[in-house]
C-alpha cells in the first residue's frame, strides 16, 4: 500500500520507513510535523497515514487533530494514530465518527514489529486496531454495578480481543477455542451489555467502546 508517515523524531521516522519498505509497502512521503502532513496527503492521496499524536508545532495533539481532519475530508484513507500514553479521550474522538480503517496504538507498540505490521494489515483490510493496553484500561474500569463486572473471565478476554479489532476466526485462534464457542460467548456478552445485534464488527467495536466510555 502507499503510506505517508508523520513522526517528528528523525531516527524513528527513518526506522519506520525502512521497515515498511522491507515489508513491500511504498512510503510516498515521510514528514515531521502536522502542517506538512496535510499538504502531502492532499497532494499524494495515500492509502494509509501513520501519524504520531504529539508533533510540532505545539507538541500537544497536533497529530490527532490532523488525523481527524483527514478522516473528515478523505474518509477513504486508512488511519493509524500513534500515542505516547493511553488517552481514552483520544481513542474515543478517533473512533467516534467511524471505526472503520482506523487504528490507535501506543507508540512503543512499533517496537513489536510483528504486532505493528499486523495492525497495519488489519486496518488496511477495513478493520480496526485498538492497542491492547487501551482496551485493558477500558475493561479494568469495572466498578460496582458496571455491567462488565457481570462478565466471566472467558467472556472478558473475548471482549478484549474483539475490541482490539480481531475477527471471530482470529479470536478463536488467539484464545485457543472453537469458532462456535467464540460466537456463543459474543452473544452472551452482547446480551449482558444490552447491545443490539448490529452487523459489521467495526460497529460492534464502536458500540463496545462507546459503552465502556459511558
Amino acid at each position: 500500500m502507499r503510506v505517508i508517515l508523520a513522526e517528528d523524531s528523525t531516527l524513528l521516522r527513518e526506522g519506520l520507513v525502512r521497515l515498511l519498505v522491507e515489508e513491500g509497502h511504498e512510503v510516498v512521503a515521510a514528514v515531521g510535523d502536522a502542517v506538512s502532513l496535510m499538504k502531502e496527503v492532499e497532494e499524494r492521496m495515500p492509502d494509509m497515514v501513520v501519524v504520531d499524536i504529539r508533533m510540532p508545532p505545539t507538541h500537544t495533539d497536533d497529530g490527532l487533530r490532523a488525523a481527524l481532519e483527514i478522516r473528515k475530508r478523505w474518509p477513504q484513507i486508512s488511519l493509524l494514530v500513534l500515542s505516547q500514553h493511553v488517552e481514552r479521550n483520544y481513542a474515543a474522538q478517533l473512533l467516534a465518527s467511524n471505526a472503520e480503517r482506523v487504528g490507535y496504538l501506543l507508540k512503543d507498540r512499533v517496537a513489536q514489529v510483528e504486532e505493528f505490521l499486523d495492525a497495519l494489515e488489519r486496518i488496511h483490510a477495513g478493520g480496526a486496531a485498538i492497542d491492547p493496553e487501551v482496551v485493558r484500561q477500558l475493561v479494568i474500569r469495572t466498578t460496582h454495578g458496571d455491567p462488565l463486572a457481570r462478565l466471566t473471565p472467558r467472556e472478558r478476554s473475548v471482549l478484549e480481543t474483539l475490541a482490539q479489532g480481531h475477527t471471530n476466526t482470529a479470536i478463536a485462534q488467539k484464545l485457543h477455542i472453537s469458532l462456535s464457542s467464540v460466537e456463543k460467548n459474543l452473544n452472551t456478552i452482547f446480551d449482558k451489555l444490552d447491545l443490539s445485534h448490529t452487523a459489521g464488527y467495526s460497529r460492534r467495536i464502536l458500540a463496545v467502546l462507546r459503552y465502556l466510555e459511558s
Partner: protein
Amino acid sequence: MLGFLYLLIVGTAMAPFLLWPRTRPGALAALASGARRLAGLDRARRFVFFGDRFPEHYKSSDQKVLRYLAIRSYTGMLCTIVVGLLGFGVILAAVLAMRLLQGRLDLQELLTQALLGGVLLFLDVQGIYSLAVLDARLARECFGPSERELLRQRIDELATSRAAVLQAVDAERRRIERDLHDGIQQRLVALAMLLGRARRSRGRNPEQVDALLHQAHQESQEVITELREATWRIYPSALDSLGLKEALSGVSERCSLPIRMDFEVDRVLPQTVETAAYFVVSECVTNAAKHSGATAITIRLALHGAVLVVRVEDNGTGGADPSGSGLTGLRSRVSALDGLLHIDSPLGGPTTITAELPCA
C-alpha cells in the same frame, strides 16, 4: 494643641464644603495640605528630640495625615494633662515636706499621704511612658512604612517567590519529560525496531541480519551516552561528591566555546547556594553557546562578605530575553534564596548576567 486648634477651626470652617459632594475633594485637599504642613513640623520634632530617621521619599495618603493629626492632637492634649498632673503632684509633695519640717504632721497622716502620692506618681509615670511609645508608633505609621506594612511587603514577596518556585519546578519537569521523550525513548523504540527487523530478516535475508545487528549495537551505545547526559542535566551529581568548582569545570569541558573561570571562594558554601550558582552558570553558558554567537565566555565567582556573586559574561550579540523560560527559571531559583539576578544584554552585546546569592 496646634493640631487640635487647626482641626477645630479649619475643620469647622470647611465643614459645609466637606459635606457638599461637589466641593468635597477640593476642601479635603486644602484641609490635608495644612495638616501635612503641621505633620511636617511633628516629623521634625521627632527627629530633633528622638533622633527618628524616616524614609526620605515616603509619602503618606491625605487620609493618613489627617488621621495622624487627629490622634496626635488627642494624645498631645492627654500628654499635657498628664505632665500637668505630675507638676501638681510635685507641688503637693513640696507642701507635704513643708508641713513635715514644721512638725505639723503626725506619722499616720504622713504614711497615708506618702502611699497615696506614690501610687499616683506611679500611674502618672506609666501614663507618660505609654504616651511616649504611642507617639513614636503613630509617627512611624504616618511618616514611614509601619511594621505592618513591612510585614505585608515581605509576605507579598514570599508569596510571589513561592509561586515562582512552583512554576520553575514545573518548567523543569516539563524539560526533563521532553528530554526523556524526545531523546531516549525514541532511541529505544528505534533500537527495538532494528532488533525486530533483524529477527524478521533471519528467514528472508540472512546477510542483512548482520548489518542490522551492527546498527542496533551502535544505537544501544548512543542510548547509553544520551542517558548519561540527560541524567547530568537533571542533576549534576558531581556537585555533591566533588563540590561546586569541579562541577563547574565539568560545564566548561562540555561547552564548545573557550571559557575563562575565576573561582575565588575560599570556604564551604551552603548546599542550596552551590546548586543555585551551578545552575546559573550552566544555564547562562548553554544560552551563550546556543543563541548569542559568542566566541568566549568569562565566569567569575567571588565572595563579597556573606554574598556570593556569580558573574557570567559573553562577547556575543546580546538581546537575551529576561522573560524567556530559562532566565525566568533562574530568577525564581535565585529569588527563592533572597538573592538578586541582574541581566544586562543590550542589542549588539555583550551580555552580562550577575547573580547575588546570600550565604547566611
